[in-house]
């Protein structure tokens, strides 16, 4: 039994060591050595075009998935809510709360579109 446990321990340690070797170890690089794509403009923010539609003149909350409030406004049933949000690129999704609804919407494409009307 002891041999078996010892053998398993060795295998586990070996596998752990192998995993560690696969991790990319980053180090400093000289700027002159960088190869950056032509169309990259170093954007760290994402300008989001917001277009939310709803039937009820009630508050709309745009929050992070962690619950932090980004913006709130009152729904205009005639024109909706149309504005722009600038979010860090690290934020891929936001939650839009309206009436009893809470929709998680992907914004990485630069748009926050949702229609809360009944026909949706």
């Amino acid at each position, binding site marked *: 039994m002891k041999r078996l446990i010892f053998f398993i321990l060795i295998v586990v340690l070996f596998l752990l060591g192998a995993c560690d070797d696969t991790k990319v170890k*980053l*180090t*400093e*690089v*000289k*700027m*002159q*050595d*960088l*190869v*950056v*794509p*032509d*169309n*990259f*403009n*170093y*954007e*760290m*923010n994402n*300008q989001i075009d917001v277009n939310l539609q709803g*039937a*009820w*003149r*009630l*508050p709309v*909350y745009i929050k*992070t998935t962690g619950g*932090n409030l*980004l*913006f*709130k*406004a*009152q729904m*205009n*049933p005639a*024109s909706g*809510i*149309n*504005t*722009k*949000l*600038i*979010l*860090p*690129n*690290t*934020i891929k999704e936001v939650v839009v*709360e309206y*009436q*009893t*609804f809470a929709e998680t919407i992907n914004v990485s494409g630069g748009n926050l579109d949702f229609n809360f*009307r*009944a026909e949706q």
Partner: protein
Amino acid sequence: MNKVLLIVTFSLISFALFAQGTIAVWGSPHNQVARNVPEGDDFIDIAAGNKYGVALRADGSVVTWGQANQLVNNSPAGNDFVAISAGDQHAVALKNDGTVVAWGSNSYGQLEVPTNSDIAKVASGIYHSVALRTNGELVAWGNNSNGQCDVPSGTFIDVAAGNTFSLGIASSGEIVAWGQGWNNELNVPSGNDFVQVSAKFLHAIARRSNGSIVAWGNNTENLNAPTTGNYIDLEAGWQGNVAIRDDGELVAWANLWVLRTIPEWVQELDIVKVSGGDAFFLGLTGEFGESDADSDGVADSMDSYPDDPLRAYNLSYPLESATGWGTLAYEDLWPQKGDYDLNDLVLDYKISLVLDAEMKVKDIQGDFMLRAVGASKLNAFAIEFPFPTSNIDIPNSTLGVGDGSEYSMPVIEAGTNSILKVISSTADFVNVPGNGVYWNTQMEQPYFDPIPISFEITLIEALDQTTLPFWGFWNPYLMVDRIDGHEVHLPGYPPTVLANEELFGEEDDTTNPEMNRYYKTASNLPWALDLPIHWKYPIEMKEISQAYYRFAPWAESGGTIYQDWYDLGTGDLNLDFIYDR
């Protein structure tokens, strides 16, 4: 009797006194209830039933919605309704001629309404209804298997109906109960000061003239009525109860946990009437009556500027920053490559927009913190805005404030755009350049507190966000050695029309406006960065890629990996090369 008539008449009129509003629903409603809440802000009464709702519009029409098709499909037509009530599978409405109509299930005779034309109020129970006549007497119909329709004689000022029981407030102010009370429904509280009663299924609640609430019936959480506060309205539901306190706050107590907490968004509303259904509540806002003080269409409860029709909302950048600040970092040798420490000028920024009800920008407030000047030149900093100088309301703008004192920020016309010179010279705030020591870029040198600089621009005509150029509402740039036209912009951001075009493509720069290529080297390296956080920049003469190891793979991937490269928490960095004070 005159007192009774007066009160009953007031009860009728009070519905008309409610401001017209929008219906809010919360709790755990059936999807058909939540999804199909009727559109509009002209409602004056609401009633919540079992998986359905009923609402009364200001024009006297009734709308029914939800999962109960027998009710939804038979909602009565007409424009002469003044009040409504919702039972389990039937609903009733009072017409302005004092008659009552009912629709939905008739399994217990719920639809066989009396012929009286003097009804002042009606209350629906589970399978029966009770009505209050203008003379104060009562009439009931529907399921009477437990005597719940055997109304007592006398005069009353309010009525309510549960499952096997009914309730009335006698003109003496006492509560009277009849029917069957297996769950203590008939054990009414004593006193002669009751002004409102409500019941649903197995329990009831009532309000005294001093605003306090008492509950009785089935011994569940539904009986945990608030013991403090004064209340102006209440309503019992199947699994929960809700009341409006005299300060406007809603208070709920319930069997069902989801009904025990009033959502924040509901509390922010100006709710003037509530109703309790099956696992959900309805609220009627009064926000489009007297509570939109500036008449801009945004209710005062949602309006950050309730007395200003030109302003409604606040929107700040950067959003979701732990500190609320972003960072602009510049190199100042353009069109020559710099040393890439990105600390020749470092400014924290926070842009706050004030929007009107149509989401147009009315005010722009810029707050900056001058954090580092790792330059031997005396540079300037300016912002291009996408509106003409003629649209700036100069007398009502603050241009500007620097280090706590008035600081003149010139406004310059640039074609159809405006330029605000935020910092005319770093020497206005920093005296170090020229003596061989940089400012807040060398750990071995003294640290200086950041210097606050701010402005506030008010626009004459609000800026439509849908007409903004691709670079948005601001285009910040450094002016090398304070020379007009010697502009260093963020990569991809265009120069202003005042930029010296002769510098484009010189030295290491490859700016080519015809190709929409701006402020990058041949190998696509930048002269400036805009970071969404309060960023810790590199120390003097250390390249950003030496300080932050994730920067290089991030840039080479076109920004698809290591998007948090600037975060000190990543671990992939050299803290010795970062100015961390």
